[in-house]
């Protein structure tokens, strides 16, 4: 999806051709949003927790260099091999080299949005390696040769019948199977076999603790543990913003993460990794990939506070009706729309406009990122850097000319109303996106200004 030239409006239009599917997508995600609400409302100190998390993250970002150095020092002392990657390519090469060193050609992965961001699977597959995603949702989209459409619920856009077809094709399940129980069993058998035979496992990192040099991985399926515990080599990959200062801060985030994501009180497995077990090699790759640049942008640095809960996607009325793939970036939804332009303004120029700026995303964010304010600010940057279409530039100049002069404005208003009234087909046609599925407003006999002049002054 990320290689396509199509924009959010175009991709959303395709998604909206099947209205029943849009309804189902919207209702499923809204149901999760409601679970989140119920769970949040069961904690009286919820807003205090959000504020705390926000401040801990602010502190972590403000002292990032110091915390990273301290983290590396502790991790090395614990026996973890630490690598630093400036960008996606370097990250992919490091992972590849580790596997080459051990002559390993098969990798089992647990969920990691960072590796999606770096396109690790594609890279390793090109080198002739086999990669199997072990998170069930990730495995499903992998079989479908699609990127995940949601960071917490990677295959939320797929119906169980479609998953049945995929499993029939790839895992030998009987044709026409759509019973979730049977499908899950089939995936379980398939993944067990994978865990038992792979010598290398890759996991993401949810939180890295500067104080102790340990890291925490949260999963609902326990697949990160299964992979890491059985493999000879454990590779963990993290963006440098995953640092939190102390172990005591972890509780704040663990209480917020799962509740915001799915409404669960806590993720089923919160696995702490501190040092390799005897005979195992543990690698940790710390990745920048544009993060330090984003740190330097005052208006946008708060986006790095994100803990990847996906709450902003579930609440976003646009995301629910356009699907994750319409964002054509590894991280979809409102948070993706403020992260993506940091990497490539031209390619992702459409994303900050894929929002009504309703502000719901900022309200659900457990670390209080001002997402909708950043969307507004990215729009200004994108236009200033010249990525607006020429039609839009022209119409904005005309608008500015009209609205800067009361005389021009009054004449234009009158002319516009006259056109609507006497030659409605000039606007009521398929070139007018408003008219496609909506009626134009009825034309009043006079404007407010004209009424005021007649009746008051």
């Amino acid at each position, binding site marked *: 999806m990320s290689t396509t030239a199509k924009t*959010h*409006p175009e991709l*959303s*239009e395709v*998604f*909206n051709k099947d*209205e029943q599917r*849009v309804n189902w997508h*919207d209702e499923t995600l*809204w149901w999760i949003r409601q679970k989140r609400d119920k769970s949040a*409302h069961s*904690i009286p100190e*919820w*807003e205090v927790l959000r504020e705390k998390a926000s401040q801990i993250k602010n502190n972590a970002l403000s002292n990032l260099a110091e915390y990273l150095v301290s983290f590396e020092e502790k991790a090395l002392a614990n026996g973890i091999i630490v690598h630093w990657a400036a960008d996606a390519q370097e990250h992919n090469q490091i992972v590849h080299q580790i596997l080459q060193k051990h002559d390993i050609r098969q990798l089992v992965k647990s969920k990691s949005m960072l590796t999606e961001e770096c396109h690790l699977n594609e890279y390793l597959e090109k080198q002739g390696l086999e990669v199997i995603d072990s998170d069930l949702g990730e495995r499903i989209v992998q079989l479908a040769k699609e990127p995940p459409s949601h960071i917490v619920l990677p295959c939320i856009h797929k119906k169980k019948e479609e998953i049945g077809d995929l499993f029939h094709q790839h895992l030998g399940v009987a044709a026409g199977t759509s019973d979730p129980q049977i499908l899950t069993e089939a995936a379980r058998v398939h993944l067990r076999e994978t865990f038992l035979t792979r010598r290398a496992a890759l996991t993401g990192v949810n939180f890295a603790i500067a104080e102790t040099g340990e890291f925490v991985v949260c999963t609902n399926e326990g697949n990160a543990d299964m992979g890491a515990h059985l493999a000879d080599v454990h590779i963990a990959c993290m963006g440098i913003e995953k640092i939190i200062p102390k172990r005591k801060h972890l509780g704040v985030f663990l209480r917020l993460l799962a509740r915001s994501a799915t409404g669960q009180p806590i993720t089923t497995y919160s696995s702490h990794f501190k040092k390799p077990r005897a005979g195992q090699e543990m690698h940790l790759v710390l990745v920048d990939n544009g993060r330090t640049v984003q740190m330097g942008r005052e208006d946008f640095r708060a986006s790095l506070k994100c803990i990847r809960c996906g709450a902003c996607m579930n609440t976003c*009325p*646009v995301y629910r*009706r*356009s699907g994750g793939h319409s964002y054509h970036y590894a991280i979809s939804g409102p948070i993706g729309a403020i992260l993506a332009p940091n990497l490539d303004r031209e390619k992702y120029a459409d994303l900050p*406009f894929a*929002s*009504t*700026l*309703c*502000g*719901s995303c900022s*309200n*659900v964010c457990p670390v209080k990122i001002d997402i909708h304010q950043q969307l507004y600010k990215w*729009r*200004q940057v994108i*236009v*200033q850097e010249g990525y*607006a279409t020429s039609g*839009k530039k022209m119409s*904005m*100049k005309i608008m*500015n000319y009209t*609205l*800067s*002069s*009361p005389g021009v*404005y009054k004449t234009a*208003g009158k002319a516009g*109303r006259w056109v609507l009234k006497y030659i409605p087909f000039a606007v009521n046609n398929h070139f007018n*996106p*408003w008219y*496609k*599925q*909506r*009626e*134009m*407003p009825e034309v*009043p006999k006079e*404007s*407010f*200004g*004209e*009424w*005021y*002049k007649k009746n008051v*002054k």
Partner: protein
Amino acid sequence: MKRVGLFIPCYVDQFYPNAGIATYQLLKKLGLDVTYPTGQTCCGQPMANSGFEHLTGDCNQLFVDNFAEFDYIVSPSGSCVLHLKEHLHTEKSEPQAAAIRTKVYELVEFLVDVLQVKNLKAKFPYKVGLHQSCHGQRGLLLTQMSELVAPYFSKPQQLLAQVEGLELINLKREDECCGFGGTFCVVEEAVSVKMGKDRVKDHQANGAEYITGADMSCLMHMEGILKRENSNVKVLHIAEILNAG
């Protein structure tokens, strides 16, 4: 007596003068000294939200020239008021612009917070659905938001409760966006319309005869959808209901 400057947003002026007239009459009824400066045009939001905030300089200056002299500026549009509060700046008259940013009010918040209206003497015997426009709700805090863990309050409901005969219906999703979003409604036509259709359906399913709100733009969008569906449900700006009867 304090002087109130009436700001009627461009699209209300051109397409929904009745919302403007109701606002004017309502404020007059409440005994205020209201003036509509005739040189006004627009708050500049359509340009700013499209990423062209740098083009709004002349428009902002015009706004300041028209409204600097008033004690209060009142407007029947949460979205425009929020834009002014957050983004009205000028090179020439920044102190005046700064003052305007603090004395500009959306009609509902002005009635509830400044005038503290307790008895409106309005009558509107219909089933009404209240659309919470996002900029009014989450930007101006007209109503508590469903995402936050905090006690409930609603300024528009406080006013609608004073209207005789009005029955406020419940909604399944009380503060879902309607999908208007300024230029979003044309740039993202497919999603915008789908959001609007869903929003309208929630009101219809709960028996609304009218949909009201503090932002005519959202209502214009929903009206366009209702009319295309040949629905009997009508839209009215909250000022028209508060001024009715």
